């Protein structure tokens, strides 16, 4: 039988101002009917370009050679008209960012109908009915109302469902899903993967799943191909690749993934309390229209915790749960509206601006996006030196330079790179620069705000290891914020789970991962993907249904305490179930 898609010796090259870049080198693959092929690789491995090139979507400066056969018919170099008949009809695509893939000024329903009327020539009235049916299929509640909405009115998860609906409505043979869940929260990711799994089993659609995440691939793919630097380094059935990897790179990829079984770091002798946060509140005024009443968005709504010397507190939550706002409020980068932040017995509220600036030597922050957090016009050495110059203005140029060099060496950067610019370094190296900048003033506390989230897994593992080493060397306290529970587990002594600006569970890491009490924590943990096909296939998921409620909704806090819905101002209480393990009230 001829396979659905057969790519043979595909090469993609780009002519850029800096020379020729070979994005894909001699890649060959086969996708059979109703089969899921997982394509794994780190950023820049050419995994997306491979499929874009196969369907004639490569950028204008790209040159493609090789052979691409769809049902035995050569489509490489086919006319745009021929390709348009294929794309969006028999072969559809889902991209990473659903907001940029949907036309902002068109109603969601019309966009879905458009796909159908163009490719299947279905009359509009009938198409409308089909569109509603497909929205129900991808589990969008109130599909009739959603069809009249615009993309910006939907949440990220909803938009991705709309994309899937658009991609399935024409009844394609093959869906190419390019990192479809990367921009989504774990619980939403689990829901989307569930839909894709259903597509594969019910509709017999073949799926090409492109992802950097071995966990995403594990649960879905029948066969897996691993790409590195434009080449396919390993291919085989999912079980072979995961359980008996032959290539050293595949082994490295698998080893870099944080395992659920990995024990949390040992609880060292924790010192005296360093930071005490008491009932911290941050609200932002939100105005939805010209004459609308200003509403209060409670980003952080009464969070209390204590951080001890040498301890790591992991802060976990989905986007919009206020974890970054919490970090900024603790560091006095965002104004708090209530509560107290006490640093070594000193109330930071009372501190003047200049006192606060002096105190910044004690607490530093590392940001999520390594490139965005460095000034593009400054050599990295200057960026690293900046806090030092601002906080210790008396230092001579020579000693600043010496300190920058030793700080760079400490985070594993070659000190001779002192005059390089951020755009010349990789993401991991830039994040090391960010760490060097934070560590140069010798802080007592470091806040890592999603500090490893934007990095590839192998780099992620290195940076986590570096942070651990720095902590062991200096006795630093850490607040480690992440949406990724398995990364948090690697570093944290205690973990705090946030939901819409409130703590739902706070416990020692072993207790939280071993004996989660709150339903939200349990849902989060069950949504975490493991790079183990058998475990993933067998897993029974505790899926949350629907979206995160709007934080503007006063009842949102009571999602897990439905019995109190008649008193909307009620806030769930934190109970200490065992010593040190706090859980919010729930039904």
């Amino acid at each position, binding site marked *: 039988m001829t396979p659905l898609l057969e790519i043979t010796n595909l090469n993609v090259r780009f002519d850029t101002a800096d020379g020729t870049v070979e994005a894909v080198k001699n890649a060959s693959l086969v996708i059979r009917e109703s089969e899921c092929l997982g394509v794994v690789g780190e950023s820049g491995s050419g995994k997306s370009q491979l499929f874009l090139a196969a369907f004639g979507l490569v950028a204008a400066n790209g040159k493609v050679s090789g052979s691409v056969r769809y049902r035995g018919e050569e489509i490489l170099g086919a006319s745009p008209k021929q390709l348009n008949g294929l794309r969006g009809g028999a072969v559809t695509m889902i991209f990473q960012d659903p907001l940029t893939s949907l036309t902002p000024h068109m109603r969601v329903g019309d966009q879905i109908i458009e796909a159908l009327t163009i490719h299947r020539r279905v009359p509009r009235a009938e198409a409308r009915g089909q569109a509603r049916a497909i929205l129900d299929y991808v589990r969008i509640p109130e599909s009739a109302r959603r069809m009249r909405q615009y993309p910006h009115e939907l949440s990220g998860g909803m938009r991705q469902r709309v994309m899937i609906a658009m991609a399935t409505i024409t009844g394609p043979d093959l869906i190419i899903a390019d990192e479809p869940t990367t921009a989504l929260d774990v619980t939403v990711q689990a829901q989307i993967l569930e839909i894709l799994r259903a597509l594969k089993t019910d509709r017999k659609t073949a799926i090409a799943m492109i992802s950097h995440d071995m966990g995403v691939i594990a649960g879905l793919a029948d066969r897996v191909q691993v790409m590195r630097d434009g080449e396919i380094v390993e291919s085989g059935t999912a079980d072979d690749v995961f359980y008996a990897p032959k290539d050293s790179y595949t082994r490295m990829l698998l080893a870099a993934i944080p395992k659920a079984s990995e024990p949390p770091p040992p609880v060292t002798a924790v010192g005296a309390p360093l930071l005490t946060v008491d009932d911290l509140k941050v609200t932002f005024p939100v105005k939805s229209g010209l004459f609308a009443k200003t509403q209060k968005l409670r980003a952080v709504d009464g969070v209390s915790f204590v951080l001890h010397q040498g301890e790591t507190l992991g802060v976990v939550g989905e986007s919009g749960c206020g974890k970054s706002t919490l970090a900024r409020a603790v560091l006095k980068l965002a104004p708090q509206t209530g509560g107290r932040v006490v640093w070594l017995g000193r109330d930071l509220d009372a501190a003047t601006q200049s006192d606060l600036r002096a105190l*910044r030597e004690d607490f530093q922050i590392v940001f999520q996006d390594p490139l965005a957090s460095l000034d593009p016009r400054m*050599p990295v050495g200057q960026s690293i030196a900046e806090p030092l110059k601002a906080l210790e203005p008396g230092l001579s140029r020579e000693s600043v330079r010496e300190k920058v060099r030793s700080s760079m060496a400490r985070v594993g950067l070659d000190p001779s790179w002192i005059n390089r610019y951020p755009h010349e370094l990789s993401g991991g190296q830039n994040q090391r620069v960010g760490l060097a900048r934070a560590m140069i003033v010798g802080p007592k506390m470091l806040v890592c705000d999603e500090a490893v989230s934007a990095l590839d897994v192998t780099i992620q593992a290195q940076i986590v290891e570096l942070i651990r080493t720095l902590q062991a060397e200096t006795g630093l306290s850490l607040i480690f914020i992440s949406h990724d529970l398995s990364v948090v587990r690697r570093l944290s002594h205690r973990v705090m789970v946030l939901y819409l600006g409130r703590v739902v569970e706070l416990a020692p890491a072993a207790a939280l991962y071993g004996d989660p009490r709150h339903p939200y924590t349990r849902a989060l943990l069950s949504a975490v993907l493991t790079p183990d096909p058998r475990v993933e296939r067998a897993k029974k998921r505790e899926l949350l249904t629907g979206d995160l409620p709007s934080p503007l909704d006063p009842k949102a806090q009571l999602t897990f305490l439905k019995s109190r819905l008649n008193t909307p101002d009620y806030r769930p209480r934190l109970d200490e179930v065992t010593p040190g393990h706090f859980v919010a009230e729930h039904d």
Partner: protein
Amino acid sequence: MIATGQTLKSSEEIMGRSLWADARHRLLKNRAAVAGMIILGLVALLAVLAPLLSPFAYDEVNYDIIACAPSWWPVEAACRAPGHIFGTDAVGRDLFVRVLFGARVSLAVGLVATLVSLLIGVLYGATAGYLGGRIDGLMMRIVDVLYSLPFIFFVIILMVIFDRNFILLFVAIGAVEWLTMARIVRGQTLSIKQKEFIEAARAGGVSPFGIILRHVIPNVVGPVMVYVTLTVPGVILTESFLSFLGLGIQEPLTSWGVLISDGADQMETAPWMLLFPALFMAVTLFCFNFIGDGLRDALDPKDR
């Protein structure tokens, strides 16, 4: 850990390739922009060396050769003035040296007024954008009020009160040009303010003014430079417009605007009097525009 054992000498440090170096590289590959820069350099050189290039002084009147064509003028002319390569004007002054002196004034007005507007506009706009809130609102409303003043009216009043003089021209033009600059810089600052590296600098204890100087301004320089190259020709045109109305430079000093105005009066009898200053001005404006285009492409290669 790499290279911890030995301390590297500074000569061994790798010099990074800054975004500026990249932009310069791209700019130098842009033929139109490079040609613009060369021609503009030549015009500037001619203007500076003007007294050395001609045996005549710019205010040397010679009633024997009033409005005479240069000796090479191809069309029939009433009289010819050998030695005067661009011919002479209505009172017999050498046109070549006057065009070059006009270039001095026009370029000087263009550059100085632009620099003034740059200095005020960048600081004002960056401060308003970075501080934000009420201060921003107040500062930008002041700009709006100044914007709404009718420019020509404003200049005429200045000229009447303070008498006509050269400096006043800079002040008048600069006072209007910085407004647009401030708006552009403010807009850019607002978007840069959201970037994480600004927050990183705040977390590192850098003062607000330090952030504006070290992080905001260097990052708005790109769009500002483009605007500058487009402002200079605008200012030159404004000056010639004012001179055309008789509000600009006074005799015997001259500018391209004055020369064009005079030349336009005698267009039919002595076309060279209009042609040469107009040609110089047009070429110069073209050069500035090409450089501006080249700079925009060089600084922002993605938006091409």
